[in-house]
């Protein structure tokens, strides 16, 4: 009898101990690959090492892959990640399809997540119908890098003295550099969608894509002016050609002004280029805006996820926010957690100007129900209007038509 009792007690204690040691496993999908993916994995490892209650399994994949897998995963109800990082533009469509769960704000507050801790430009955009769907990791955008050595060599610093570079100044500094013997290229036409939408935002207040929230209705005059500006710079010989590898040109001192994402900072540093970062090239400094996006933590609809897992996810997200100095330093991003603004090391980073609360209005974060359709249609016309394959009017009409037809056929 005593033996049986001892055995039962031992078993109960063993089970209790096992329960106490139980680790909550969290599946986390992200859109970070390459250098960003390695940095993110490092941050996940740091979180896993910082405590022993939650273990996060990180699955990185390209954004395209994630956006293709998610609808099917949610629909079948199997293998849904507990938390995922998506681009903020995608959230309205996910919400409309009832694919996302809103955050339980009381529950996430237990882990330290409150709205005040985050960049408001990003936070407020995921407040939909009284619910909150996204917690921003960062804001990131398309800005301007200049080759400081070349600017010094050809005495071009006067063009960046006010902190901005206008399209007129691109021409002027290009003429001056060439007159002084510079044989490289002045300005690049790279990722057209990001570049053009930044410039478009400068011309239409509120960077409008839609009137009724559903159908695409571009500000045609603004878009036409943007496209005409690009085309004329190209035709007058101030920009790279379609076949040019503009990043290699910038690293090799063959490109003066490079429009690129802030996430390329680490690569530029590795290439040993003496560089400076500026806002996007603009029509007027007073209306300067750059195309921005934001990586957001979201939770896709999964009926089997427990409250315990939701709390574990919240702890993980809060850790990511509070420790996002690494994200700024190694991945070159602008963390959305405002605590970073008080960190001196961050303030000295070149991309820190994007965190300036006074510039929040300049961040053109597009937010449109059918962003995915618009993105594909807009990217399609890419170079076609620049090299004259189609006219600018036709390009704009094609974008609108493609989005309208896709909405109608869905």
């Amino acid at each position: 009898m005593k033996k049986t009792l001892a055995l039962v007690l031992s078993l109960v204690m063993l089970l209790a101990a096992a329960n106490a040691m139980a680790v909550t496993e969290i599946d986390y999908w992200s859109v970070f690959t390459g250098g960003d993916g390695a940095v993110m994995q490092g941050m996940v490892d740091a979180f896993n090492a910082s405590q022993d209650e939650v273990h996060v399994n990180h699955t990185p994949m390209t954004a395209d892959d994630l956006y293709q897998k998610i609808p099917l995963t949610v629909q079948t109800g199997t293998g849904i990640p507990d938390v995922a990082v998506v681009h903020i533009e995608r959230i309205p469509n996910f919400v409309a399809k009832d694919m996302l769960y809103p955050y339980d704000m009381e529950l996430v507050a237990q882990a330290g997540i409150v709205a005040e801790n985050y960049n408001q430009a990003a936070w407020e955009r995921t407040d939909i119908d009284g619910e909150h769907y996204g917690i921003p990791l960062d804001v990131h955008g398309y800005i301007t890098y200049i080759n400081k050595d070349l600017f010094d060599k050809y005495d071009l610093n006067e063009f960046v003295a006010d902190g901005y570079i206008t399209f007129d100044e691109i021409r002027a500094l290009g003429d001056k550099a060439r007159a002084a013997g510079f044989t490289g290229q002045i300005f690049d036409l790279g990722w057209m969608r990001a570049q053009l939408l930044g410039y478009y935002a400068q011309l239409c207040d509120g960077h409008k894509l839609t009137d009724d929230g559903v159908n695409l209705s571009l500000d045609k005059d603004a878009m036409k002016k943007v496209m005409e500006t690009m085309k004329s710079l190209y035709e007058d010989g101030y920009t790279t050609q379609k076949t040019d590898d503009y990043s290699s040109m910038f690293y090799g001192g063959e490109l003066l002004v490079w429009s690129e994402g802030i996430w390329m900072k680490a690569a530029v540093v590795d290439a040993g280029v003496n560089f400076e970062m500026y806002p996007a090239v603009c029509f007027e400094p007073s209306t300067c805006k750059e195309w921005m996006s934001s990586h957001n933590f979201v939770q896709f609809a999964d009926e089997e996820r427990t409250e315990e897992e939701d709390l574990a996810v919240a702890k993980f997200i809060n850790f990511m926010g509070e420790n996002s100095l690494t994200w700024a330093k190694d991945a070159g991003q602008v963390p959305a957690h405002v605590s970073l603004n008080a960190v001196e090391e961050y303030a000295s980073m070149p991309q820190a100007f994007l965190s300036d609360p006074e510039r929040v209005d300049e961040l053109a974060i597009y937010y449109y129900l059918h962003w995915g359709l618009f993105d594909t249609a807009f990217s399609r016309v890419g170079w076609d209007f620049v090299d004259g394959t189609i006219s600018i009017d036709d390009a704009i009409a094609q974008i609108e038509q493609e989005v309208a037809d896709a909405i109608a056929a869905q």
Partner: protein
Amino acid sequence: MTRSKIAAFLALAFVVLFCFAGVTATTTVKDVTVSVEMGMPKLLFSLSSAPLLLIPLAIVAAVAAFIAFIQNEKNVGMLFSFVAAVSFALFMVFFSMEEKNSALYTPISEALNLAEVKFKKRDVKLISTSFDIMTYIALACIALSCVIGHGSFAKDQRHILKRDLLPYAYIAPHLFFFVVFFMTPAIYGIYAAFTKWDLFNEPVFTGLENFKTLLFDSSNTYYKQLRNGLGNTIKFVVMCVPFCIIVPLSVALALNARPKGNKLFQALYYLPSLMSISTVTLTWRYVFNVQYGIVNKCFGVKANFFMPPYTWIMLVIVTVWWCTGSTMVIYQSALASVPQDQYEAAAVDGAGTIQKFFNVTLPNMVYPLMYTLVTAVVAQFNIFGQPDILVGFSNGEANAVLLQYIYENSVKKQVAGMSSAMAVILGLCIMVVSFIQMRMMVKNQEN
């Protein structure tokens, strides 16, 4: 009436009753309980429940059983009835086990809206299902057809049973996978072509609307995409197929001359066809890379092969490199079977190498040549991996083939109905071309 005929009648009754059978779905949301009924045929085309994949298998098997019983093939009929009964029973079990059946969510949500219940998808926790009496009668019919129609199990008759069923045992694994994973999705794909579907919500039947848009609405994006995509696909087929025949034939002829190390070369030439398309394209991506590519380095040029005017050339080279091995083996086999006495006779008549090739070798290879022509045309009509991985849409629509549009529209843009209609049109084009070629092949064989 013989047992076979009764069994045939029961198998047919199963198919007929299936059309009138249905399911009742019930759920409770916020203390409101709603029930909806849905007919089996409609359920079959809801495209969102895995157990439904078993139904086409059951129907096909029941039809096969009917035909077998009519021809008095009792054992075969029994086998197919058994497969149909088991498939249908399994469907009923697994379908009932699904807690939140996506196939039934749409009518349930409509019923909840009618009941003025404000809800979100996640509030619908459990949709319980029950089959109506007609479903059970259908199951009973097919099970009875198996019981009634069976052949003799007597010891002295078992060899007949074995003789009748053994061939089906050999093809059963393939048949199962063919019906469930090829034929059924193909049928669903064709059905999807007649719907408006975003891959997430239930498809809405729209009749011929998609085809009307694709074929007649010249202002529509998909009308233009179909023309551009199909045009580029045909362009690629015309450019690529001759090389897919000539190159392997040349290699096979060269190897047939038994040069030193011919076995090694044969293995080397065959090797690419064992690789996946991703491996092949990524390898060639480096070969043709503008900065680091061996082609540019060797020739001292800085050509971008991923852009016009080189793109089609690059795509043909990659495809021919990939396809040569498998076609080469067919030609080698054909060359080996050309009668040597015909060469000898030709030599006696004073024929040279070229004359021997055109007058002896080629006439003996007509069948394999026609066969490879058909397979090459079908394969190249289905071109996707090479342009998608190597070029994508980076050249706008200059090199976009139809399958790229189909993939992009269905998976990336979730315009699945229209994409399926495009796929059906592509399939019809391939069928027409293949049919003409097959006719030519048969005609040639008759001559």
